[in-house]
Each structure stands twice: as C-alpha cells, then as structure tokens.
C-alpha cells in the first residue's frame, strides 16, 4: 500500500554513518579538551552502531545487533577507564587540555 514511501535506501545509512564518523574524527582533531575528544570518539562508535543495526535489519540477520551490545560493553569500559585517567591527570595538571601533555616527545 505505502510501498513506495517506505523505501529508504541503505546507502543513506551508509552516507549518514560515514558522515557522522568523519564528524567524530574532525572533533577528535580540532578539540583540545580530553573530555570532548572522548565524546567525539563515542560519536564515532555510535555511527558504527547505527550502521551495524542498519545492515542487520537489511539482511535480516541479528548478528549485527548482538555485536552492538558488545560495542556498548567496550564503550562503557573505555569511558570508565578514560574518565579515571582524566581525573588522575586533572589532579596533577589542573587541566584537561591535551595540548599541555607534551612532555614526552622526540
């Protein structure tokens, strides 16, 4: 009945995800605050999740959805560790600016 209106090309999801992924990359590059960078990485992960779910629905195969759970697990663990590192740096440095972290070089 509404067959034509229901069509969403899978390419659109591919495009959206790629765009969000690259946006996340840009965020990682241009921001100096470690928290925001971490959030940008979360954005990248989410773009991936979305694409996985799209592929999963498209092919009617739920592996993709299950994988998203694992990505969430990892993201949660990553965030916990990342924020703990951040707090410990903040205690020593009084800032979360990663450009101040340049003692190790050359």
């Amino acid at each position, binding site marked *: 009945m509404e067959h034509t209106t229901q069509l969403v090309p899978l390419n659109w999801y591919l495009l959206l995800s790629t765009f969000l*992924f690259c946006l996340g990359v840009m965020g990682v590059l241009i921001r100096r605050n470690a928290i925001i960078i971490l959030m940008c*990485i979360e954005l990248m992960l989410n773009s991936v999740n979305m694409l996985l779910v799209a592929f999963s629905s498209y092919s009617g195969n739920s592996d993709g959805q299950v994988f998203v759970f694992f990505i969430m697990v990892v993201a949660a663990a990553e965030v916990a560790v990342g924020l703990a*590192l951040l707090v410990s740096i903040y205690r020593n440095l009084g800032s979360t600016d990663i450009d101040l972290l340049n003692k190790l070089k050359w």
Partner: protein
Amino acid sequence: MNTLIYTAGLGMVCLAMEILDLRKLLVPVILLGLAVIFGVNLMSWADSGPVIFAGLDMSSMLLVDHFSVAFNGVLIVAAAFLFAMSHDFYKDEQHHLSDYLTIIVFILCGAMVLTSYSNLVMMFLGIEIVSISLYILAGSRRHDLRSNEAGMKYFLMGSFASAVLLFGITLLYGASGSFKLTEIASYAATYGMDSPMFLVGSLLVVCAFLFKVAAVPFHFWSPDVYEGSPSLVTTLMATLVKVSFFAAFYRLMSSGFAGIDPHTSTILVIVAAATMIVGNLVALKQINFKRLLAYSGIAHAGYMLLAILSLKTNSASALLFYGATYILATIGAFAVALPVFSSTGKETIDAFDGLGRKKPFIAGMLTLSMLSLAGIPPLAGFLGKYYIFSEAIHNGYVAITLLAVITSIIGVYYYFKVILAMYTKAGEDTEIQFPMLYSIVGIICVALSILLGLWPGGLMGLL
C-alpha cells in the same frame, strides 16, 4: 580453550588472594599457575576437536589450532618472565601489587583470545581487553605526570583506532553478512575484489592493526607511551602485546581475508618500507633507552610485516620464530635495564656507562640481547631475520627484503651504542643493585637466545 579458561581463573585467584591478604605468595602462585597453564596448552596441541564451552559448540568463536597453541606457548613464557620481574619491580607498591598482576593476567587472556579467535567479535574483544588494560597500566603511576601523559595519549589514540577498526568490521559485515572468519574468507574468495565495502572495510581493519603493531604512519603513540609508562609495562607492551597483535593480524589476513590481495600487499609493502626506514633512522638519535627500544620495536614491526606479506608460503612459523626471538631479546635487555634504571635513577643510555666494568656478567647479558636484536649471528635474532627474509624472497618481495637488510645494518649502530656505553665509558660510581630474579630472567632469556640461535630446530618450521 582450556588454556583461556584456566588463565581467566588465575586472574580470579589473584583477586581472591588480595582479599585473603596473601600478597607475598602472589608471584609464586602466578608462576606456578602459568606452569600449569603451559602444560594445559601443550596438551591441546594434539587435540583438534571442536571448542566446547558450557555444552555449546563455540568453534565459530574460537578455534584452537596449532597456530594458536604455539603462539600461546610463547606468550605464556613471556608472561612468566614478566611476572618474575614484577616481584622486584613493584617492591614499593605492595598495596597495588595484586591489581597490577591481575591486569597483566587479564592481558594474557586477551592475548590468547587474539591468537585463537575465529570470529571478528572475539577479535574485537581480545583487542579491547589488551588495549584497555594497557591504558590503565600505562597510566598507573598516578603521581607521575609522564605516566599520566603516556596513559592518556595511548588511551585517546587507541580508542580512535578502535573506532576505525569497528567501522572496518561493520563494512566487512555489511558486505559479507557475517562476522565469522570462514564466511568472510569465502566471501572474499568469491567477490572480495569487486565489493567496494569489503575493500574499504578490510583496509580500515588493516589500518587499525597497523596502529596496534606501531607501523608507520600509525606509530606515533609508541615512543611516547613506551617512554612514559612504567618500565615493566613498557616491556609488556614491547613483547607480549606486540607479538600477540601480530599473531592476530596474521590470523586475520590468512584465515579472514583468504590470503593477501595484490592491492593490500602493495599497501603493506609501502608501510613496511616506511616502518623499517623510520624506525631505524629515528632510533639512531635517541638517548632514552626505552624510547630507543620503542623505535627498535617499530623497526622490528617492519620486519614482522614481511611475514604477514609472505602468506603464500606458510610464513606463520617464521612469524612465530621471529616473535619468540624478539621477545627473548627484548626481555633480556629489560631484565638488565630495569634494575639499572632503578639504581641510577636514569632511563637514558648513559645509565649503562661503565656497566661492563662494574658488572661484567650483567653487561654481557645486555650485550648478547642487543646483539640478538641487531641480528648478529649466531644469536637467535639473526636466524629470525634470516627466516623472515628468506620467506619474503620466496614470495617474490626482493626489493623490500633488500631494504630490510640495509636498514637492519643501519640499525646495528644504535644497538652498539648501548654496548659501547657499557664497555668504553666510565660511569658514575653508583652501586647497581641487581636482585636475583632479574638475573635469573636475564640468564634464561639470553641462554634461550643462544640456544635458539644454535639449535633452532624445534621452533623453526613448527607450524
């Protein structure tokens, strides 16, 4: 499979011992446990049945084959060395000892997953277990800003690389409809070259692996992180972790991508060439020993990439042999370096000044380790290089192999810098404390380096 379960169990035991306040026994118990695990691992060599976990067939997740058993064996031995050294290294941090050791045990678990996965889900989890635990360990000197910096840098770049990896995995899934290596391989064999998603996905995954093994241009994290991390963690990253990532990379390329297509091989050749050049050249100018070994590790990654390139012949045993020799030499070097660092308070090459006079025996161990890293016969490092290079030539990569020979000759210079510092300079009169366990680890590593150099038989051509 049992190997993995027992290792995870060992991690639990460590945590339990913390609760029971048995810290003193921690290292002996872990070493004992590793010995048992090594035995269990050996037993699974002959056992090629399906992987059964909780009554379910998990063969599509984990595949125990000769490749994984052999690499697990090497990793367990490496871990045993690291734990033996940790006893003295963490002497002043007793209250955190069990935390550190448990995390290292878990890293070993992750590394074992990496050697035996047969599904991208497991690969991803393995990579993350290893990486996340390493972020923690790298930043574990909480009051040391350098350690913080190392942890943070590693964390940010590592997570970024994980995101790239995931994007790649997703595209592979989108193309092939599965996470199983076998299905991906059959997809690759049928449509691989024509599917843009598959190509992009595989390239992104390769990039993520190149990051993990510190290949140029994804190597930038490694010198900084190696330098800033506590030295034992640096040893861990340079040895166990690096080799396990290479094993995973090899497994992915050989059983996931069904060999190596010409495009990927061109890219890997370029990356390997850049890696050898950058690693060896930059190392020439280093004064910090850990940084030096970081660049040396980058250079060695370049050589090990040759094994990945040489998939056509069965280069797995070349990779195994090289990995083992590299681990032995690097741990041998660090077994000398760690106590020297803590006695002199320096981590630069001149910390070794005059060691040849003060402690000739110890200096001899470091010399042999350096010579093995440099690839001077008859030490094992030479045979490792020789093995990998000859595999590469059999696969037709002549030019890159010539470059590898030339860069490895350049590389000898910086290893000799350390040797010459020990023998031709008079250092300060600081007393070098050299605890027993370090010497034992050093002696075993060096002895194995020599033995493997002279009688490679067993390990060479194992796979």
